[in-house]
């Protein structure tokens, strides 16, 4: 059975060009870039190229790029750095819809004497900048707000938010893991201090991430060790990963147009057709401020894990914000923060596309989804009851 992969916010396929760029650096050019011999030195030069490729995509300077192991490490490094730089400031501002890399870290810091303010979002998942402004006090070490939400795709106005914190001398970090490669991110046009990226969300392999640190921003390393990354991140470089990341960023720049035309068109088609064909379904998240590849749809009166497993039988891959998929008993914290009713949150499915999806795949999903939902609604004790109540209204 062929796989129809609509779960690209979870991870993506490594693109062919990226793999080709990486392969020689496993067996042929395996030298350590820190070595004195030219066998290692040639790898060091390749890392420089990769750093330039990343910097080009971000409109940044190569020395502002630090290679890490993943988005989570980048997020943790940024927050811990700010806390180390400002030992007297014990307050962090973030939002209620952050990725666990920020959310869980802040929850832990809250037990260690830090005050965490989580800004709420409205029913469409949008952030109120006036509310941010009201909360900006001198005791804040850092404000961290995600750029694009992994579950709904909703985009936060982080560039404006960074401007507000800059005026008050407060550090600003953004988790841009879902945004880079999908929407234009140009560090020349904003004053964001730190920004996290993950390789495997943009067709580079797992195990490589980036932390952008603006020149002049005070910084304290998280991993202490050798002088790699100019002493800003110890540990021997993941050379194939870094080289793959460089290539992936170059490709992301080239494919940005396609993400916002072709991928967006397929996403919109999928969303429109599913809403039209499946009664009592709705989109979660603001459709005007959204990543071009993501749609989060709730199908009322059915449960997300059951939907995913029936989709799985047809080779269709997606995700759900239902409680049952997470192992916890509460549905997604993002949907709850938006006030999505539990009845809707349990039946939410996230479809996230990539440039490798085809029209034929989307048509197949559009054709199969109504049957899946109908089959589960046929088993649901609430479905008939709700239909009758609608008729009587």
């Amino acid at each position, binding site marked *: 059975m062929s796989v129809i992969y609509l779960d690209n916010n979870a991870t993506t396929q490594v693109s062919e060009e990226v793999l080709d760029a990486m392969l020689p650096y496993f067996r042929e050019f395996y030298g350590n870039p820190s070595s004195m011999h030219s066998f290692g030195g040639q790898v060091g030069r390749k890392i420089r190229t990769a750093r330039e490729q990343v910097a080009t995509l971000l409109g940044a300077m190569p020395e502002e790029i630090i290679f890490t192991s993943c988005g989570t490490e980048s997020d943790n490094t940024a927050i811990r750095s700010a806390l180390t730089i400002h030992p007297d400031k014990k307050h962090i501002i973030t939002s209620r819809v952050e990725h666990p890399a920020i959310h869980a870290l802040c929850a832990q810091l809250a037990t260690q004497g830090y005050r965490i303010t989580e800004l709420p979002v409205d029913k469409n998942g949008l952030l109120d900048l006036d509310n941010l402004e009201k909360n900006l006090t001198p005791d804040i070490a850092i404000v961290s707000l995600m750029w694009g939400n992994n579950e709904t795709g909703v985009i936060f106005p982080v560039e404006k938010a960074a401007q507000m914190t800059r005026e008050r001398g407060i550090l600003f970090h953004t988790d841009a893991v879902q945004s880079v490669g999908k929407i234009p991110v140009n560090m020349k046009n904003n004053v964001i201090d730190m920004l996290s990226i993950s390789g495997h969300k943009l067709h580079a392999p797992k195990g490589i991430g980036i932390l952008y640190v603006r020149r002049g921003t005070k910084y304290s390393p998280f991993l202490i060790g050798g002088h790699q990354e100019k002493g800003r991140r110890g540990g021997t470089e993941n050379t194939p990963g870094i080289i793959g990341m460089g290539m992936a960023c170059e490709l992301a720049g080239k494919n940005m147009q396609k993400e916002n035309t072709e991928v967006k068109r397929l996403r919109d088609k999928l969303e429109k057709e599913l809403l039209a064909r499946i009664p009592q379904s709705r989109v979660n998240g603001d459709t005007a401020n959204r990543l071009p590849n993501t749609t989060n749809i709730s199908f009322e009166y059915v449960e997300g894990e059951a939907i995913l497993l029936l989709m799985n039988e047809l080779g269709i891959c997606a995700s759900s914000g239902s409680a049952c998929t997470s192992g916890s008993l509460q549905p997604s914290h993002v949907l709850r923060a938006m006030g999505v009713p539990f009845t809707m949150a349990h039946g939410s499915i996230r479809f996230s596309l990539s440039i490798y999806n085809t029209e034929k795949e989307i048509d197949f999903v559009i054709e199969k989804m109504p049957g899946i939902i109908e089959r589960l609604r*046929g088993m649901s004790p609430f479905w008939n009851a709700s239909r009758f109540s609608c008729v009587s209204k």
Partner: protein
Amino acid sequence: MWEYTDKVKEHFLNPRNVGEIENPDGVAEVGSLACGDALKLTFKLDENKRIKEAKFKTFGCASAIASSSALTEMIKGMTLDEALKVTNQDIAGYLGGLPDEKMHCSVMGKQALEKAIENYRGAPPLEEGAKIICECFGVTDKEIERAVRENNLATVEDVTNYTKAGGGCGSCHDAIAQIIEKVRSEPKTETKPKLTNIQKIRLIEETIEREIRPSLKHDGGDIEIIDIIGNRVIVATRGACSTCKASNITLKHFVEDRLKEFVSPEIEVEEVAK
């Protein structure tokens, strides 16, 4: 992804007995949309007061649907008293096991069955005097106590996996810990976990091999297990036992007593017709 057994997958993809029986003898609804799973169970009895038909409608994940399907298959042909003895362990065992985090799906099946039988009998709720411990999921102290007792649970996390209690705001964790402590300090025999059929059969064989057969062989006799139906162990006598006039006394007062002691107090030993 959850590691579901093939049996869970099979019952999820081809659920048995989906629907609602018209004019049922017993009906129950447990769970809610907000909780993330809910089950409506209906059954009808035959002229011998055995369950002729049972149907379900379930809102929930794959294991909730599979547990409902398994339950309706298991209770068909049972009397209501027999059906009441079905535990959540039996439901999970029928499916070849459930992931720990999904055990509450089997507990939901058990609850629906009890409520449906209460509904038929018109009996007052069994759990009189119960009070809600987990406000988020509406779980009572009695329900928690029973889950701890029947499944030999030791931690708050276990209780959440089996009953959902404590899976929301977490403010009841201390109260749950107290219930666990209380139940676990009860005399040990009470907390003996209920066996699945396969575990029971294995234990019967082991007990005969270890505790019974050596004594019989000492006197030149032996027994052989012919069948095990529920708690009835059907045996045939061999060797000296087969001709001994007192073999019936041996079976009742030695074999059965040993099996009651080591397997379950409900075991009865019968000799196969000669």
